[in-house]
């Protein structure tokens, strides 16, 4: 048994032109020591449990590996806890950290049956009518970008959250937090976009709020919108309803919005003819739902991209998801920018794409219904729901191998390596 410290190769230059050797000792990091303590406790507990169970001892190798894999599985299913003391940008990226924050802080405090499903909108009963209620905040930078602006996002985003819940979007509220010094002309532009978007989507903005904060806060303009809509169709849509054999579709090429924003920020010095895909999807969804009865779930792919939605499906329904890389539509420029930056389009935000889970037998029907609508011209069937392995999303790569598409740990940051 080794002591654990890696065997040192020849580190000292015997002739030594160097001034002295490397420093000895060194202190250790607090969080590492704490983690090691937890580890010792946990190992101690496991060994005690093993002894109590008095199980027969097969080959030591197998037992240890099984133990370790079980431990990991348990950790994955354990009650979420936020370990950080402060909020980081990861908490807003839409991946693992965001999920943990939502479950450990918000769900934990507000817990009630209407919140638990954590879908894009809450479905509530008001005097016999089924109503969907949703809210979203928009903090995009830059405010104006190819394909739209924060106003478009603010209306379309909320309309879409209602539409994917099976509701007909009706009314929106709009709350503005404005930075001191923000040009009124810019505000007018944004508001004009919102009105145009609202008209396109067939909704009205019926109430709102305005606050102003000192220069240096609110990055120009932050917008919050809330929306309500009426659910007229029977049944409930939800990712937990996905079952093996279901087909998964996406309404168009992925990653357009996120790449547009990254390029529009100007820090990366890339130019391309990509524009944001921000659009209202209620028309497309209405058309789809009227022609296909077997739709189980709808999700609009925003922060965290399509990959995040696929993981939500797998986790909520405890099923496997298998998608095929060749079938996933991605624009050439989005691919180029992603390759250049080392990011994966599957994790990049969209703002006008819906992911559909539908009864496998009706996949072709659903596809045809979507393709018949302008917002769904490039819709595609990208994969299936499987029984095994539960909770895991797999991708059959264009190359023919398979890999796992896990939840993102943070933002899809450009890599060099």
């Amino acid at each position, binding site marked *: 048994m080794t002591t654990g410290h890696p065997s040192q190769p*020849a*580190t000292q230059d015997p002739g030594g032109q160097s*001034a002295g050797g490397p420093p000895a000792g060194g202190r250790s990091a607090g969080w590492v020591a704490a983690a090691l303590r937890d580890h010792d406790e946990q190992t101690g507990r496991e060994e005690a449990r093993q002894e109590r169970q008095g199980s027969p001892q097969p080959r030591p190798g197998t037992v240890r590996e099984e133990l370790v894999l079980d431990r990991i599985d348990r950790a994955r299913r354990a009650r979420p806890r936020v370990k950080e003391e402060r909020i980081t940008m990861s908490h807003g990226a839409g991946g693992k950290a965001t999920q943990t924050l939502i479950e450990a802080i918000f769900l934990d405090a507000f817990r009630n049956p209407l919140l638990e499903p954590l879908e894009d909108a809450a479905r509530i009963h008001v005097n016999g009518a089924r109503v969907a209620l949703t809210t979203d905040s928009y903090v995009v930078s830059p405010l104006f970008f190819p394909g739209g602006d924060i106003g478009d996002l603010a209306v379309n985003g909320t309309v879409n959250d209602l539409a994917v819940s099976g509701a007909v979007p009706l009314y929106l509220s709009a709350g503005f937090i404005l930075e001191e010094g923000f040009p009124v002309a810019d505000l007018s532009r944004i508001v004009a976009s919102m009105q145009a978007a609202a008209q396109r989507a067939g909704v009205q903005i019926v109430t709102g709020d305005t606050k102003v904060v000192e220069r240096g806060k609110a990055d120009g303009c932050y917008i919050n919108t809330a929306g309500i809509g009426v659910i007229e169709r029977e049944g409930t849509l939800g990712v937990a309803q996905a079952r093996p054999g279901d087909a998964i579709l996406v309404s168009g090429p992925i990653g357009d919005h996120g790449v547009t924003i990254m390029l529009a920020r100007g820090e990366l010095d890339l130019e391309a003819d990509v524009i944001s895909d921000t659009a209202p999807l209620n028309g497309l969804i209405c058309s789809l739902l009227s022609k296909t009865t077997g739709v189980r779930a709808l999700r609009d792919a925003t922060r965290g991209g399509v990959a995040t939605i696929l993981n939500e499906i797998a986790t909520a329904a405890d099923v496997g998801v298998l998608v095929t890389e060749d079938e996933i539509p991605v624009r050439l420029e989005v691919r180029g920018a992603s390759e250049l930056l080392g990011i994966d389009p599957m994790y990049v935000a969209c703002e006008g794409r819906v992911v559909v889970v539908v009864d496998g037998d009706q996949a072709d029907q659903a596809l045809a219904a979507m393709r018949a609508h302008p917002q769904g011209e490039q819709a595609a069937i990208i994969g299936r729901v499987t029984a095994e392995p539960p909770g895991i999303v797999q991708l059959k790569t264009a190359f023919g191998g398979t890999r796992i598409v896990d939840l993102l740990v943070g933002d899809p940051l450009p890599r060099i390596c």
Partner: protein
Amino acid sequence: MRFVDEFRAADKAHALAAKIAALCEPGRQYKLMEVCGGHTHTIYKHGLEDYLPEQITLVHGPGCPVCVIPMGRMDDAIALAAEPDVIMTSFGDMMRVPGSHGSFFDAKARGTDIRMVYSPLDSLKIARKNPGKRVIFMAIGFETTAPSTAMTMLRAAAEGLSNFSIFCNHVTIIPAIKAILDSPDLRLDGFIGPGHVSTVIGCRPYEFIARDYGRPVVVAGFEPLDILQSIYMLMQQLSEGRAEIENQYSRVVPWDGNVVALRAIGETMELRPYFEWRGLGFISHSALKVREKYAQFDAERLFSVPGVRVADPKACQCGEVLKGVLKPWECKVFGTACTPETPIGTCMVSPEGACAAYYNYGRLTRTRVKEATRS
């Protein structure tokens, strides 16, 4: 995408896979190391291991310049970033590497001005735009990236910029490979050689691996067919009892390397006597620092860097995992103290490190292998 898609064509993969399988001696296990983190990334991204027979295991090497930065150096970087009027600029990969009190990301959350850049030239741009600030570039990478840092310093010198410096953490690949080869319990049969490092240093520096250690090396490109072809070439060498250096990535890698690049490095940087590698300990002459002549661009000279060494915990067994001696789950702290969210050693820091990969994908691979071998 030209020069990319052709090398991702699945139809050629089966052919290569068949040829590779045919070269395996019955009953013999083969361990091939891909040194480079970029190769590891390709292997996982395209599911390349599905094409390999069970007899071949790929061992993921230490060629991840991000992962090998020790905690103490991260602490130094964060301390530099926290200096008054400093803008720290860094590649995206570094943002999440933990020091003893968190990463760049965590420091940013506390209000430190740390900005992500795609190129050191972007860092220069920030320096020009912010004359009242002192811009530091966190320079990391093997010999692939060092020339870019060097050229940036030369450009800064030509422009007479006085508010730009680099925190130099460039490391060199040969000493790391040598450290692996020198370990007494080495069990590797051959190397998939670094692709882009070789565009700079050429293929000659690997000759000692074949000559003194009798192991074949094939310098490989980064598309999946490149790697499969390189494995095929390695297996050919092994089956013929040869140990040579071959260049599969000849469309990009010149045998003699890039002289202009090497000159730029030589002009601005020199080797440190030793440098600590997370998980591998101290390795002599394995890293670069800024030359005296360019001292005005050396953050270590311009600022006082804490330089406190934070030891790898004794429990860390990255060294053995990197050499192919231990499997990730055999490391005592794997999965408990050391997880992707709280990575202790280099094998867990990178999402493609052997341990991170096993943590995320291990159970699935075992299931697939079990199913594949059941009948």
